[in-house]
């Protein structure tokens, strides 16, 4: 490693100069921080201050920069030195803004500042500026799995952007579900009548595009590698497999209609005159071929009356059927009712619904159906009784309060059953069985056949869908460079699926571009650091390979971890998991944090100055503490806060080191875990907590009180709450008494 | 020649000896002051009112109004039709809208009119007197003529239904129209903008057929006027006026209330404020006497 030169810069602005003895801080940096170059400046973030630093870099050969000023979240434009290792000691939001401006507070405030300077120097020395991941592939080809509207749209949009595409469709033809439709719901004003599906057009676009290679009757036999360098085996009908180099993957495997045979009480499977929405599309298509009259399957007589049963096997609270709403069915039934009304207004068409769900301009489509004479009845269908060529539909009329209302002599009944995602193997099988939402089919056949140690397919979220759990980041999956789009990740209609497909194409393109540059994907997008492992120290315990929330780490035949950097999201969970501490990042490691912990000056037990270590998640807890500072909310001068990438990256050694060093307590602040987790690394905070749950044993062996470690679930809005919790904890620790390890 | 001229459609209730004859009298005095010339449509007939619906059917109802249009066109060409009665105005305006929007209805109407030897060539504008006052003259012009401000009188502006819905006066809201309050202020009296019953229905024709239902609503209308400390109520509609005024006695019997509040037409307030006599304002036409106004009307005019 090239020799380094560290410089420390202490700002006097924003009241730091008045509230702190900055000369003393400079000395601390030199004496304790052992930095050769330490300066203070009146106003470090202004042009002059920044110029000073740049000058030292240019002329003094400074490689490592420690800035003692405001929070790392502030003044990022000014203190932007991407080629150099930079540490920020938070003297403003972290010290002077959370301490009272009084004589008696002055001493403890100064101590706080000095510790942060020591910590900053220690940290920066343990860092190197990330060089970027060299183990990358440069494939620019997209793999699209699924040849329906979503898949074809992804392929076309990617190709339009200038990227080659390999499209794999398991059936013998492109088109998918939409290909079987007679017509689709309109997407343009005036939203009055069913429109052409546009599938034929998409198919011809795909076929005409030399940039898109289509495999029909084909499946994915094997997916190996990482973004930028996936190697995919495509198995075709003939038995031959073709190997493709792939940069990123979009899975658009769509859905299957919920099986109406599971709804015998609604006549499912009881009569040819009870069909699902697919069944009706077929009848309508057939009619269009002929005289346009939709006929009764049982005897071919023209349909004079048809009833649509909404939410068939959906929005189910009994646990037998789908618990969710498929969103598209109301518009679909309206469309299908129009198939009848547009050809013969005399046909009685009734839609029985509980809540009619036609968002946005769907409301115009709803109105248009009413104008055409489609009858909407708010009710709950109890039973469909087919007899001979007609059926009786018994329902509870919710408006007229008629519990045994009935429609008799109904020629055709259409059950609006929902969408079931074709999402492959549910690799979190445990989660699947615990799924209280109920009877979601678990497809036994893998779709991607990933060679990943953690399983063959993309993890599912809920009810078999692969949707991201994030509201702000809908495309995030737990498999870097693999995105899902269309009804496989959330029930949706054609319009949404096409929008979704276009977005997914962008994410895939982005993933392969950044993989080539060795950059991280969301949420640490652009991060050049990546995990490095000293295999000679590894004990093959497999914790890292099991815990990685993104399945980035495989195992070689000797059970050593194989890091696929381009799959890595840089959360550091592997680092936190490693019992022998052989995993680290260039700018974030067991050492960068450990050194800071050691750097803190621990007063002896008689000083009555306890020390509390706070390890705070940088996404939520740390900003909350910053904002507490901005609001000038005071909290204890005894805490020393270190931001961590994620609670999952917290290695228990930090805690034991701290306690051994004589800290009186350790506070861990991480995001909400569990079902409604808010951790941006999905499982990070949860894994962190699981690890912590075992800390009690460690405490016992050190015979320390369990109060010495405190785990706090934190949201970014806890601006008032955090200072309260900190002060409360500080008081508790006083009660517990000083740590016995002080001064050893 | 007068500043403004209109074909006048007084309607049945405004005739001599009919329930709104006092309305007519006061309107005539008001128009004299404002230099508005109203020429009664010769041999006009009843509008059928909304309550005629059981027998009226659609076409006959419109034909009735169309006859008035035809007469107006024949005798007073080019003049807009002005009605003082809310029901007349609404009935006529509805007919106007329907005929303009349906050629069949228009043709049928013409065919029926033939029987009375009449026809329509163009649709007249049908306007309520209040519209004329606000849009053609304006508050400023109306205020100019105030020589005897109704100082210290607190008046609840009761707009009711049919001058307000479904057409209403331009720029006013259905739920909280303010033009009556403005008129009250204009004549120097004190308005009650927060009077929340201003658009409550008086029961309309149900006052005759199902008095108890109508009177329950009238009770709310009067009660709230009292709650807001009103000395009197003002309205632009003959049926509202009659219903709210003449049943107070019965309501008192039914509910043990002590209602005795005068219900006036805007035109009566204006005539008094314009310096007119009690007779000009037809104050003698009140079943519940408007003593405060009579006193003011007796006072000499400040000039």
């Amino acid at each position, binding site marked *: 490693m090239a020799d380094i030169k560290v410089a420390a810069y202490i700002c006097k602005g924003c009241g730091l100069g008045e509230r702190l003895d900055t000369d003393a801080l400079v000395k601390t940096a030199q004496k304790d921080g052992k930095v050769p170059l330490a300066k203070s400046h009146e106003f470090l973030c202004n042009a002059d201050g920044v110029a000073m630093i740049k000058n030292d870099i240019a002329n003094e050969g400074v490689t490592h920069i420690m800035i003692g000023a405001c929070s790392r979240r502030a003044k990022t434009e000014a203190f932007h030195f991407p080629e150099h290792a930079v540490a920020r000691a938070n003297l403003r939001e972290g010290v002077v803004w959370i301490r009272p401006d009084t004589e008696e507070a002055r001493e403890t405030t100064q101590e706080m500042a000095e510790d942060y300077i020591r910590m900053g120097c220690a940290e920066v020395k343990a860092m190197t500026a990330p060089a970027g991941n060299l183990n990358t592939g440069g494939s620019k080809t997209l793999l699209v799995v699924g040849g329906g509207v979503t898949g074809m749209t992804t392929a076309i949009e990617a190709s339009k952007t200038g990227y080659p595409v390999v499209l794999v469709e398991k059936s013998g033809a492109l088109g998918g579900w939409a290909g079987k439709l007679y017509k689709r719901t309109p997407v343009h004003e005036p939203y009055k009548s069913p429109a052409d599906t546009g599938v034929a057009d998409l198919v011809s676009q795909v076929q005409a595009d030399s940039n898109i290679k289509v495999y029909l009757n084909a499946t994915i036999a094997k997916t190996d590698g990482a973004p930028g360098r996936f190697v995919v085996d495509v198995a075709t009908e003939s038995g031959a497999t073709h190997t493709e180099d792939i940069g990123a993957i979009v899975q658009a495997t769509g859905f299957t209609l919920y099986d109406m045979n599971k709804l015998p009480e609604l006549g499912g499977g009881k009569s040819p005159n009870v069909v699902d929405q697919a069944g009706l599309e077929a009848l309508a298509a057939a009619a269009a071929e002929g005289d346009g009259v939709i006929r009764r399957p049982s005897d071919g007589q023209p349909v004079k009356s048809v009833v649509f049963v909404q939410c068939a096997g959906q929005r189910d609270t009994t646990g037998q059927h789908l618990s969710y709403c498929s969103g598209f069915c109301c518009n679909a039934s309206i469309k299908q009712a129009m198939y009848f009304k547009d050809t013969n207004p005399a046909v009685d068409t009734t839609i029985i619904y509980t809540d009619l769900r036609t968002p946005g301009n769907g409301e115009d489509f709803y109105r248009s159906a009413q104008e055409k004479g489609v009858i909407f009845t708010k009710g709950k269908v109890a039973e469909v009784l087919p007899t001979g060529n007609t059926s009786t539909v018994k329902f509870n009329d919710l408006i007229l309060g008629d519990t045994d209302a009935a429609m008799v002599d109904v020629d055709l009944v259409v059950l609006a059953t929902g969408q079931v995602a074709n999402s492959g193997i549910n690799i979190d099988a445990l989660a699947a069985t615990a799924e209280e939402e109920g009877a979601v089919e678990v497809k036994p056949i893998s779709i991607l056949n990933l060679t990943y140690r953690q399983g063959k397919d993309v993890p599912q979220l809920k009810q078999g869908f692969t949707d991201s759990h994030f509201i702000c980041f809908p495309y995030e999956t737990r498999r870097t460079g693999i995105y899902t789009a269309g009804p496989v990740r959330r029930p949706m209609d054609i319009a949404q699926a096409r929008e979704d497909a276009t977005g997914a194409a962008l994410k895939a393109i982005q993933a392969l571009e950044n993989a080539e540059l060795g950059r991280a994907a969301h949420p640490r997008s652009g991060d050049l650091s990546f995990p490095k492992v000293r295999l000679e120290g590894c004990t093959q315990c497999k914790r890292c390979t099991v815990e990685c929330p993104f399945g980035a780490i495989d195992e070689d035949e000797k059970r050593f971890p194989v890091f696929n950097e381009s799959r890595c999201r840089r959360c550091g969970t592997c680092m936190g998991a490693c019992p022998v501490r052989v995993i680290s990042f260039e700018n974030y490691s067991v050492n960068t944090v450990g050194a800071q912990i050691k750097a803190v000056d621990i007063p002896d037990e008689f000083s009555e100055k306890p020390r509390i270590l706070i390890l705070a998640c940088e996404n939520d807890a740390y900003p909350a503490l910053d904002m507490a500072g901005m609001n000038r909310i005071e909290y204890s001068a005894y805490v020393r806060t270190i931001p961590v990438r994620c609670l999952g990256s917290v290695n228990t050694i930090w805690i034991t080191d701290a306690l051994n060093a004589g800290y009186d307590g350790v506070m861990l602040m991480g995001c909400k875990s569990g079902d409604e987790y808010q951790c941006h690394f999905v499982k990070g905070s949860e894994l962190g907590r699981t690890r912590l749950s075992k800390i009690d044993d460690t405490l016992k062996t050190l015979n320390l009180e369990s109060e010495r470690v405190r785990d706090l679930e934190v949201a970014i809005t806890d601006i008032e709450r955090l200072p309260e919790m900190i002060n409360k904890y500080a008081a508790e620790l006083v009660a517990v008494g000083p740590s016995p390890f002080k001064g050893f | 020649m007068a500043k403004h001229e209109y074909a006048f459609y007084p309607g049945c209730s405004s005739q001599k000896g009919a329930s709104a004859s006092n309305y007519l009298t006061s309107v005539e005095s008001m128009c004299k002051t404002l230099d508005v010339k109203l020429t009664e449509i010769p041999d006009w007939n009843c509008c059928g009112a909304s309550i005629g619906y059981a027998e009226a059917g659609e076409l006959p109802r419109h034909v009735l109004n169309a006859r008035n249009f035809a007469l107006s066109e024949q005798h007073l060409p080019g003049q807009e039709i002005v009605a003082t009665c809310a029901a007349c105005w609404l009935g006529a305006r509805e007919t106007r809208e329907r005929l303009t929007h349906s050629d069949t209805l228009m043709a049928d109407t013409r065919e029926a009119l033939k029987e009375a030897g009449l026809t329509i060539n163009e649709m007249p504008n049908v306007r309520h007197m209040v519209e004329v006052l606000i849009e053609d003259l304006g508050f400023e012009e109306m205020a100019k003529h105030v020589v005897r401000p109704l100082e210290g009188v607190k008046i609840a502006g009761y707009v009711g239904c*049919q001058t307000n819905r479904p057409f209403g006066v331009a720029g006013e809201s259905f739920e909280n129209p303010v033009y009556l309050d403005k008129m009250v202020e204009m004549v120097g009296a004190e308005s009650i903008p927060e009077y929340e019953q201003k658009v409550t229905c008086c029961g309309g*024709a149900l006052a005759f057929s199902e008095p108890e239902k109508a009177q329950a609503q009238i009770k709310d209308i009067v009660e709230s006027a009292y709650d807001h400390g009103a000395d009197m109520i003002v309205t632009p509609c003959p049926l509202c006026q009659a219903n709210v005024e003449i049943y107070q006695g019965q309501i008192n019997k039914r509910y043990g209330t002590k209602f005795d509040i005068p219900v006036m037409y805007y035109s009566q307030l204006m005539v008094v404020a314009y310096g007119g006599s009690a007779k000009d304002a037809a104050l003698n036409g009140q079943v519940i006497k408007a003593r405060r106004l009579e006193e003011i009307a007796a006072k000499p005019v400040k000039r």
Partner: protein
Amino acid sequence: MSANTAVAEKYRNNFLKEIEEQVEMGDWVKMCMQCGVCSGSCPTNFQSAWEHPPQELFMMIRAGKREEVLTSSSMWNCTSCYNCIVRCPRKLPITHIMHGIAEYAHRLGMAPKMQPTRFFSGLFWKNCTHTGRVNELKLSMGLYFKDGFVQGIKNGMAMQSVALGLVKAKRLNVMELFGGHKCKDQKGVHAMLKKAYEIERSRKTAKMAG
């Protein structure tokens, strides 16, 4: 076969179609989305409840409850206040539909016989079309005597104070009993209305036939 059974035969179970063709503004009934704003806006609704509020009537029509709808007294509660019309999010002309259904029920002779508003409505129309102008005195008298002579006197007495007030205020003229206001061209008015009825009836029957 009565008019009623005739149409019933023709439309069989499709009451909505019948309403659309036979009732003024009836083709709006299908546009209702059951939000209930009309019901909540109706002034009479909040007193002795309606049998069926407008939106419920519309649902009953769609449900083919012909008998209940046409014999219902509900429509006759309309005061023509137009609150429902201006608030309806689907812009249904509810007031007119109510009048239309009432008129149709009346036409078929299915409306409740002694429903006071039905009676008064008919009375009013006869009264105003007789001379071309309303005769308020005869109108009131007619109403009081709807349930026979004795009841008429009773009603009359009950309304005496009101009447006297009006007479004193010269807003009710006893002489109206003999003659009163009228149009000069009563013949024309009658002929014109006769024609109008003919046309309207023929159109409705045409619809029924077609």
